[in-house]
């Protein structure tokens, strides 16, 4: 297949165009996407791996992007779906969860860590949000951290706007309970 590759390389602007788009997307959104992924998977290196996969996926699916949505909501949607696929995957459920068992076995170092983590108000708020169930955590994060409108969030998650409103309200109630526990 040398011939076509050479042609493709010669045809530089065509090949480069899609690569440039991805480059630009990474430049603009990669940190936001990484943070979004982290709120789903709660693990730094997993989040980095998944973010990498997400941008490769964007490249592969770029020709399926129709101009109906903004490119930003499109990328977020790919990211959100990719994370949910991961959380549903065999690997995550069997391997990562068995690692998590250690979280429930009390140890001294763990307690110490938590004490350090717990000391500031910022950490209390962050930890409370991170411990919300996924469907609340997702909408809270997209709305308050990524500062997206409910309409945009609805496009990303394919959840009805009114449902999102209810979830936000419920999330606030849950948060208040959690904050009381912490303090």
């Amino acid at each position, binding site marked *: 297949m040398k011939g*076509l590759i050479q*042609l493709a390389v010669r045809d530089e602007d065509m090949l480069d165009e899609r690569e440039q788009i991805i*480059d630009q997307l990474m430049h603009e959104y990669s*940190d936001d996407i990484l943070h979004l992924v982290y709120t789903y998977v709660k693990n730094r290196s997993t989040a980095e791996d998944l973010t*990498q996969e997400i941008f*490769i996926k964007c490249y592969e699916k770029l020709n399926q992007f129709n101009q109906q949505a903004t490119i930003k909501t499109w990328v977020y949607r790919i990211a959100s779906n990719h994370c949910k696929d991961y959380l549903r995957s065999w690997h995550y459920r069997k391997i990562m969860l068995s690692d998590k068992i250690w979280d429930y076995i009390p140890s001294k170092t763990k307690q110490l860590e938590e004490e350090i983590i717990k000391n500031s108000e910022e950490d209390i708020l962050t930890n409370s949000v991170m411990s919300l169930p996924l469907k609340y955590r997702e909408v809270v994060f997209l709305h308050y*951290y990524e500062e997206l409108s409910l309409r945009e969030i609805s496009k990303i998650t394919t959840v009805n706007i009114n449902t999102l409103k209810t979830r936000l309200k419920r999330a606030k109630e849950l948060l208040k309970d959690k904050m009381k526990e912490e303090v």
Partner: protein
Amino acid sequence: MNDPFMNLKSSMKKSIFKDLSFSNERKSAVKEAIRTNQQSQFDNWNSETIIAILESVQHESKDGYNISIQLFQKNEHTFQKNEGQLYTLLHLLENKEILTSNWINKKKYYSLNSKGKKYLATYKEDISKQKISLEHLIEEASL
């Protein structure tokens, strides 16, 4: 108390997202993956096979079955007893925007995209150049 999530953004930035950034190494890894993926997908195919497909749809759009018949007529037997692979390749060419497709009567008709036309034209140009240089060689040798 007003909105409890008011300070979420700054709080998260100061805590869990502190120093959490998509590094340049990670970005390069993405680009690297894109490049190798681009090549390896086509590496499995013979360039003559691809050109034969492009030629078969250059004047009119055809469905997969008619493309396969035309390939046999051209003595291109890559897909003989292995027709499924043809559809994989058609799909790939479509994804790379070399072919476009239309659904007519539950059949998918493929035709050349502008990119595909360009490939085909450049390929033919190369072939004719090669021929000319060969002819030159033969001429010179016979003199």
